[in-house]
């Protein structure tokens, strides 16, 4: 079965700094999803990556999928308090069925 490992598990950065969260898969990724979860709330879909080398951006968040399709990174530029939360990567053998999730990365932004 596919397993996803996220690093780091927690991250504390000063407001305005850049940061990167990694997601490594034990198998080739056919689709990689990034979600954000605010404390005590549900998951919000951020981006989906499908092709090797693909890169997508939304506001100050950029996600990349490596050429071998076994690792993805999420990069936040000039972090803001609104970026705080738990970031989770998810993947499945095909489409959105039966996703497996990483354990999450807890991001804290200090003013």
């Amino acid at each position, binding site marked *: 079965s596919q397993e*996803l490992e996220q690093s780091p*598990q927690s991250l504390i950065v000063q407001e305005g700094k850049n940061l990167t969260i990694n997601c490594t898969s034990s198998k080739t990724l*056919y*689709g990689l*999803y990034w*979600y954000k979860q605010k404390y*005590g*709330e*549900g*998951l*919000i*879909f951020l981006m*989906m990556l*499908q092709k090797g080398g693909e890169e997508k951006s939304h506001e100050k968040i950029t996600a990349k999928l490596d050429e071998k399709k076994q690792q993805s990174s999420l990069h936040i530029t000039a972090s803001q308090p609104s970026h705080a939360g738990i970031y*989770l990567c*998810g993947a499945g053998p095909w*489409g*959105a*069925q*039966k*996703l*497996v*999730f*990483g*354990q*999450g990365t807890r991001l804290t932004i200090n003013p």
Partner: protein
Amino acid sequence: NAGVTQTPKFRVLKTGQSMTLLCAQDMNHEYMYWYRQDPGMGLRLIHYSVGEGTTAKGEVPDGYNVSRLKKQNFLLGLESAAPSQTSVYFCASSYEAGLQPQHFGDGTRLSIL
């Protein structure tokens, strides 16, 4: 836009009691899912459904039952609650085919005493 709605939001049960969690979606999605989220373990799939009248087991199905009598609703039942089922439960839904993301509800925080 309601999206995925879960009820209740919070519940405290005693060991051995039963209860049903309700998930409703208004996006006409074929697929629906129930997950549990525990500290340090991410989200784990309990059961899922690929359409009205169908259900299938996920990664951690023991102690839970589900039903999908209507396309828009997916029920998760605990017949005899155990302290190990203390968790935050999330429902999600998605379109049938292709690489479409799952849309999540806000969760139900369940404590079993």
